[in-house]
Structure formats: C-alpha cells, structure tokens
C-alpha cells in the first residue's frame, strides 16, 4: 500500500446551489474508481474540509462516468449573494478536495497527475514587448 493525493488519480469540478456546494470527483479509470469508492467516504470528506463545511456531507456514486458526487451543506458562508468569502460560489472546492491523501494499492503507487505544459501561453506572452519583469506592451508596439 502507498499514500497518494487524490490529485494524482482524479479530476474535479465544483459549483453551488444556494449554501450547498456540489463537488464531483472523476476517476482516471475503473481501478481508481474502485479505490475511491472504498477510500473517499462522506465522513472522510467532512473531516477534510473541517470548519469550512457547517452542515452534512452526502456522497453519491456515479459509476457510469467513474465519478463520485459530494453534496456539502452549509459550505458557502450563506450562499453566493450572502457570503463574505472570496470563493462564495465554491469554484475552488474541487481543487481543495483532491488535496486529500488516501491509501492506494501498489499498482497505483506510481500514478502522478500530468504536469502542465503551457508553452503556448509563454509563446503568446513572449510576443509582447517586455519593458520590465511585470510590464509588457501590446504586440507590435515599440
């Protein structure tokens, strides 16, 4: 057995309905799905978020797309237009969930999340006229 962050094994997306956040976890394949069904229980997710979630956490299994869906009640400081939080719509809760470390069988121990390759972004920004470390002028200007 090994310990891995969910990030090495799963995708995620989260959103809001009132003061309830929905956080979905997408397994890379069936093996990963079987592991997260066993490991990522509602209670575990509740513990992970701690004081960020005031209410209960409910888990739904969605085997046809190898996903788990978590409903987090009282997770958004009162809900979008009422909340004082920066992330009043729960957009970042998916990323926060995949920080969770779980036990995985040895066959998954070497799994790693792909690393971003944003060469295209550097290329776009490289076309701008750099006048200082954080100061650039539009393309073509001198």
């Amino acid at each position, binding site marked *: 057995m090994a310990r891995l962050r969910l990030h090495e094994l799963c*995708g995620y997306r989260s*959103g809001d309905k009132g*003061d309830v956040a929905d956080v979905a976890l997408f397994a890379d394949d069936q093996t990963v799905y079987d592991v997260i069904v066993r490991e990522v229980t509602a209670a575990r997710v509740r513990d992970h978020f701690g004081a960020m979630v005031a209410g209960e956490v409910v888990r739904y*299994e969605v085997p046809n797309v190898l*996903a788990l869906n978590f409903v987090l009640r009282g997770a958004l400081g009162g*809900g979008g237009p009422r909340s004082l939080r*920066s992330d009043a719509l729960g957009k970042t809760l998916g990323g*926060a969930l995949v920080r969770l470390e779980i036990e995985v069988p040895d066959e998954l121990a070497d799994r790693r999340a792909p690393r971003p390759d944003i060469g295209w972004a550097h290329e776009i920004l490289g076309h701008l006229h750099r006048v200082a470390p954080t100061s650039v002028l539009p393309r073509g200007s001198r």
Partner: protein
Amino acid sequence: MTVRVAGGQGFYGDTPRAVEGLLADGVDYLCLEALAELTLAILQKDRQKDETRGFTRDLPLYLAAALPEVAAGRTRVITNAGGINPTAAARVAAATARELGLTGIRVATVLGDDLTTRLEALARETPLTNLDTGAAFTELPSAALFASAYLGARPIVEALAQGADVVITGRCADAALFLAPLVHEHGWAWDDWDRLAAGMLVGHLLECSGQTAGGNLSRDWWTVARPWDLPYPIAEVDPDGTAVITKPRASGGRVSFDTVRHQLLYEVHDPARYLTPDVVADFTSARFDDLGDDRVRVTGVRGSAATATYKALLCHHAGWAGEARVAFSWPDAAEKATAASAIFVERVEQAGLTVDEWCIELWGVDALGGPTVPGTSAEPPEVVARVAWRCADATTAGLVGREMVPLTLSAPPAGMTGMGRGAARPTELLGIWPTLVEKALVDPHVSVHVEQV
C-alpha cells in the same frame, strides 16, 4: 430527423461572440441561458431604477447576431433573458429586428413565473419552507425582493407550436430551454419519461456554454486546443432521445468523454434523481460513448414522473458588506498579514462600529483551501490579507472600511493597503431562500403571448 440545438450563453455577461460560430455551423435552435441564482436580484435593482428594465441587457447583442438567421428561417432562438420583465425584453427584441430591417419575426413571451406580488397569498396555501434550512416562511428575515418559480418546458413548447421564432421567458429551469424544442420537433409525450429525461440531460450538458467544450476542465486543461477560441456546444438529438454532443467544426476547444462528464455532475445533487419541472432524470443510467473527432454519444437515459411542485427561489435583504485588502512581502509576510488583520479588527471595535460577521482570509497562505491546506514551513514571498465584514447598514459598513486606510503608516512594516478593490463601496448582501410551490398554484397564472414584428 435529427434536431441540432446549441447552448449559446451560459450566464449574464457571457460573450456573444461564440454565437457566430454556432450559427455558421448551422443549428436549428439557439438557446441562451442567462439567469444564475442571483441574476434576478441584479435585474430587480435594475427595474427599481427604470420600469423598462429587468431583463438581461446583453440580449440585443445576441439577437443582432441571430436575428438575420432567424428571419431567413434557418434557426430559432429560445432564451430566459426576460428575467423579471419578459415583456420589456420582447420590446427590445422587436426594436433590434427593426434596426436590422427585418420583418415577419414572431416573438413570444412566457409569463407567470414571477410570484413576488402574490407571495403572501401563496403562503396561505403552501408552506414555502426553506429547503436548505427547514425554516418556516414566517422566519423569512425581511420582505422578499423577488420570488419566482422555475417553470418547465411546456409554455415554451406552446409558444413554438404557435409559430414563435424567438421565445423569451423569465425564470425557468435552465435545461427546459433545451428540452422544449426537442419535445416540439420530435412530438414527445409529456409522460414519455425516458425521452424527457434524455432531453433534460442534453439541456444540462449545454446550459453552461463553454464548460462542456473544454472550459473549466480539470486534469489536462492546458491541452485544450486554442482555448482563446473556445466554442460553445451543440447537441444533435434523434427522435428516440439519442444525442451526440459536439461543437462547431472550425473552432478550438474539445468535446470528449471527460469534458462531458465534468459538466454532467456540475451543480447536481443526487445524479440518480435530478429533479426538473418536467421529469425526474436519472443521470446514472446514461451511457456515454466517445466517438472521437469531438463527438460524444449519449444513450439510454432513464426518467420517471415529475413531482407535483416547482422549485422556487425567494431573495431577501441580508445586510451590507465591505471588504479591504492589504498586502505584505517577505520577510514574515504571513505574520504581518495576520497582525494587520487583528489590528484592523481592534481599531473597528475601538471606533464603536458594530460588525455582525467577519471573514479574514490570507491569500497566498490558505484563503481558498482553508483547513485542507497542509501545514508548511515554507515562507510565502507575499501574502494579502483580505478582510470582509457584514454590518446592518451601509453607512457603518463604509466607516469600517475607513479604519483600514491608516494601517499604511501605523501597522507592521511595508503594508500596501488599497489592493484590488481596496476599501470598496459597501455592497448589499442578499439571502436566498429556495423552496417548493405546488404546480397547481402556479400553472393557472402561466401565459404565452406571440406577436409578429
């Protein structure tokens, strides 16, 4: 016969530019979803200032692109851009058509979702309990600023049957905008639950525009083609409910099993019982086949009978908020930011200002992740303290913000106040109250009006 429906808008403020790509690719119906939960609150403030407002004001931008295609008989438009004033939105649609020199377009409005003026009467007939908290309607903290029911696809289908080219609704279930043309074209019965569920699932996949076509994708997000040219999604739907989710050919983006499943569960509670006005859809029953070439086939969706209620959303005043930010750099950035927050809170108390709630976040430490962020000994190169507060009135909320300004010269070293919005003007907070209301109490008030312009 296959019907092509497209999701051309995902929220009020989305870009109308993606519509051009959808129209160029050819779609039978262009559906524009403009209303998030709190959008009606924004529109309510608009209408208070001007009786002719209360709809999403970017509607003419969308119609300017779409109406020439509508007039040529190549597409029809369905939108909930009417907000809390569909009649005014229809007038704007007519004006847009005239400006473009187009005639013969039939514009329909759907009314009856707005419960605001008859809320007290409704409360005598049905509990209007808060779905999230269980609180009784009598505990609503202040008068409702708006109250509206999420209508289904039926009135839209009625409008299409009357020959409407453009259908403008107020609040309705987002996915119903997409189900309606499928019911109309394929003649699905209102108790053909599997077909209705398939249509709702298609609508759910299209209602958030770019999110199905490579936007907001986790995992390998950087591999999405030309993300600055992200297309919006199209569904090709057969009479039996089989659908292929795809995108305009000449565009960036991606439609794959992964992009589709990301959207499938977005803002869904129980995927096996997705409650909509027209059907209860079982998203776990669907089969998704990635056909390659940006095409994903959806089959086998199961549905069951709709409930006897509509979801409704009430919105009420909930106080005033202010927010301020102050940034610190290394060394000891996090400690300085924490100390500055404490000094600020103490100063506000000394000034005798009453704050009902504080929110203190350290950006660069754990502002977004909270307790999920592992403890680390690494020193962040910079940290922003963001402090937000809630007060009973706007004046107090503004005075609290003033207490942040002096920290520039009288707090831990080198704090930069006025970051970002700085001590921004106070904003009104709104509480939302999700509830249920019997269809029988709403349907008699729903009406469809079609006018040729």
